[in-house]
C-alpha cells in the first residue's frame, strides 16, 4: 500500500469515525441530561472556588515535607500523586462550570433573533479556546507525572476568567431582552 493510499484511508475513515464519535458523545450527553437547578450560571460561577488549584501543584508543601525527619522518597511520590488527583477533581468541576455557563449562553443565542448570528461564531471560538486550553493543561499534567516540566495553572485561570467575562459581556444584551 502506498503512502498516498494509506493517507486517503486514514482521512476517510478517521474523519468519519471522529464525526460519528462526536455526534454520539453529544447525543449521549443529551440523553443523560437531568434537570440542573435553574438559575443564572454566571452568577454562581466564581474562580475563587478554584484558587486552591494553583497551590496544589506548587512545590512549597513538598519542600516542607522533604525537610521533615523521616521523609522518604515514596512519600513525596505519593504526595504528588494525591495532589494531582485532587487537581483533576477541581479541573473536572471547572470544566462542568464552564460548560454550564457556555450552555446557558448558547441557549440565549439559540432563542435570539438574526442580529445575534455573529455570536454563534464567537461561542464556537470560545469553545475551541477552552478545549485547547484544557487539553494543553491535561497534557502538561501527564508530562509532570512523568517528571517532565512543571504545571503553571495561572495562565489557564486567567484565560477562564477572560472567557467568562467576555461571555457575560456579550450575552448581557440578550439576558436583558
Amino acid at each position, binding site marked *: 500500500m502506498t503512502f*498516498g*493510499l494509506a*493517507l*486517503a*484511508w486514514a*482521512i*476517510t475513515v478517521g*474523519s*468519519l469515525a471522529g*464525526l*460519528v464519535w*462526536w*455526534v454520539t458523545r*453529544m*447525543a449521549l*450527553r*443529551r440523553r*443523560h*441530561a*437531568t*434537570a*440542573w*437547578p435553574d438559575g443564572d450560571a454566571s452568577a454562581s460561577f466564581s474562580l475563587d*472556588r478554584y484558587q*486552591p488549584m494553583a*497551590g496544589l501543584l506548587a512545590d512549597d*508543601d513538598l519542600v*516542607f515535607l522533604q525537610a521533615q525527619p523521616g521523609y522518604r522518597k515514596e512519600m513525596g511520590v505519593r504526595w504528588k500523586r494525591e495532589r494531582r488527583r*485532587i487537581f483533576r*477533581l*477541581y479541573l*473536572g*468541576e471547572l470544566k*462542568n462550570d464552564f*460548560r*454550564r455557563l457556555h*450552555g446557558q449562553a*448558547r*441557549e440565549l*443565542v*439559540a*432563542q*435570539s*433573533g*438574526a*442580529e*445575534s*448570528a*455573529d*455570536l*454563534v*461564531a464567537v461561542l464556537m471560538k470560545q*469553545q475551541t479556546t477552552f478545549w485547547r486550553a484544557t487539553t494543553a493543561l491535561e497534557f502538561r499534567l501527564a508530562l509532570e507525572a512523568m517528571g517532565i516540566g512543571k504545571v503553571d495553572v495561572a495562565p489557564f485561570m486567567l484565560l477562564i476568567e477572560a472567557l467568562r467575562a467576555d461571555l457575560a459581556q456579550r450575552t448581557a444584551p440578550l439576558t436583558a431582552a
Partner: protein
Amino acid sequence: MFGVERALFYLNVVAELGLLFRLLQCRLYRIYGSLFLYWLVQPIESLALLSVGRQSRLYVYLYWGAQTINIFMALYVVQDLFRIALSEHPAIATFGRRSVLAAMALAGTVALAGIALDSTILPGHYPAIQRFATFERSMNFVVLIFLLLISILLLWFPIKVRRNIVVYISGFVLFAAARSFGLLLANLLPQAATLTVSTILLGLTLLCLLIWIVGIRPEGERTTATPGYRRDADAMQRLSRQLDAINQTLAGFVRH
C-alpha cells in the same frame, strides 16, 4: 441472489410509494417538500430502468442519468433539511446560511481525499462504471459529512428539534453512509461480489424507507423535550460536596 435482489428492488418501489402516501396522508409533504420530491422521482426512475433491458448500453446511460439527478437532489434535500431544522432559531439559521458553503467545502475536501481509495480497476470491472461509482460514492460521502456536521451543530446548541427532523436526518445518514461505503466496496471487491453488495444496498435503502414511513408522524412535529447541555445533577452535587470538603481542609491547614 439475483431473485433476492429483484424482490428487494420491487419492495423498494413499493416502500417509496408507501412513503409518498404517508407524507400525503399526514400532510407533511409541504414541510418536507424536498424529501417528497426526492422519493417522487425514485419510482419514476425505477420504472424507466425497468422498461429497458438490464444488459443494454441504454440501461447504463439511464442509470447514470438517474443517479446524477439523485445526487444533486440529495444535496438539495440536505440543504433544505438544514433550513427546516433551524427555521425556529433565526440567529443560528443566519449563521448556518453564511457557513453552509464552508461546511460543504469541508465535506468536499474530506471526500476528495478519499477519491484514490478505489482507483485500481480490478479484472472484470468496467472502467467507466467504476469511475462513475467513485463519483457517486464521493458525492454521497459529501452528503454524509454535511449531515454529521448539521447534527453536531444541532446537538451543540441546546435547542429543541422536532422528532420528525431527527428521524429525517437519521434516515438520510444511514442512506448516505450505505451508498457511499456500498459503492466503495463494490469497486474494491471482485466482480463476483457486485450482486451481493447491490442486494445489501437495496436492503439498507428499504430499511431507511421503513424508518421514515414508521418514524415520520404528525405528532412528530411537536418539539422534543431535550433542553440541553446539563450534567448529571447528582454526580455534580456529589463532586461539589467533595470539593467543598477539600477546600475546608485546605483552608484549615496550618503549616507548622
